[in-house]
């Protein structure tokens, strides 16, 4: 490859990388603050409503209905879950970016990572 072609490749890769990094930072920031907001809100609802948090989280399938009922335990659990799924969310976004960039190897890598997360959820289901 000539040095001119190399420069063009470098510029293309740099642009692709910038897109990837920008989106990951957005997901990290959004995931962290959404999770903190939910946890703080849950703790406040518990304190104001005099409904103490339990010493065990609700089963996965009950978390969203419980949070929608404004149950403080459900809101805190949802915040913790959102935090735990934030890394998976940036992998999902990366998967879309790699698909658009036709980067097959990293599409496979991202799919493998999401499969691992699904296995970990599946292994723990009560």
């Amino acid at each position: 490859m000539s040095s001119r072609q190399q420069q063009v490749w470098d510029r293309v890769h740099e642009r692709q990388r910038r897109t990837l990094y920008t989106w990951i930072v957005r997901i990290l920031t959004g995931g962290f603050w959404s999770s903190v907001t939910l946890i703080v809100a849950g703790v406040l609802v518990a304190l104001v409503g005099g409904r103490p948090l339990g010493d065990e989280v609700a089963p996965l399938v009950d978390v969203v209905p419980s949070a929608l009922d404004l149950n403080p335990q459900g809101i805190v659990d949802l915040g913790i879950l959102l935090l735990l799924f934030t890394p998976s969310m940036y992998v999902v976004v990366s998967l879309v970016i790699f698909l658009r960039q036709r980067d097959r190897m990293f599409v496979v890598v991202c799919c493998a990572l999401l499969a691992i997360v699904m296995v970990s959820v599946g292994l723990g289901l009560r």
Partner: protein
Amino acid sequence: MGIAEVIALIVVAAGAGTLGTMLGLGGGIFLVPILSLVFDIPLRSAIAASAISVVANSVSGSRIYLQARYTNVRLAYVLLVPTATGAIVGGVLATSMPLAALKIVFATLLITIAYIMVRRRNPGAIPVARSRAPDPLRLIGRYVDGPAGDVVTYVPRRVRYGFPMASLGGVASGLFGIGGGPVIVPVMNLLMRVPVKAAASTSSFMVGMTASASALIYYSRGHVDPVVTVISVAGIIVGARVGARLASKLRQDLLVVLFVVVLTVLAFSMYLDAFGVL
């Protein structure tokens, strides 16, 4: 849990985060045994709280390194496949094995880390990987470093040989709720010749995914105590920020002596607890 206990827990978590960060080990290594031995919190709940704190620390702290481009996201994704798989194995082992065995394994980990810290010598400068080495996965990293604005360019080497080591880091993360950093950073730096700044930033990004893979198992199996977790997360995040600021201001050799003593006391307390003596 009473107010006094909540305050004590916040102080302990912040202290663990500060100390762990100053030594580059993460707060979990101190937090888990203290929660278990002093606060009488079930060991698996302590490990789960620590793992979730690791995720929170990674999610909140990686942004700056990503923006500075120290983090090599493509390298992180490639290494995350064995690391996250190892974390699941560790998580399943920790939630299945007898509690006394888990305590013994954890105490042995503490003793091993204390031993490594005593033996550790300054390895000197590690030659950085050549930037024109073959790079079929396009793992090349490039960032601007130092006040002079030098551009550091590297291509990680021997990536496939890092897989088994990275998976061991993942198992340790899943078993003990600690970040895999103490294993993954040396693998990237010593084996793959990734500059230490890039290795530390990439590891900090990776441990969020690794710890979340095992924390989801703890969560689903009902080992997460929301109150302990929320307090630990808050304390560890604050402590990590304080530790990062203090790290360069304190004498490292004195710190190492202090922490080796603390780790050894915690390890032997855990052995005694495992055998029902405490």
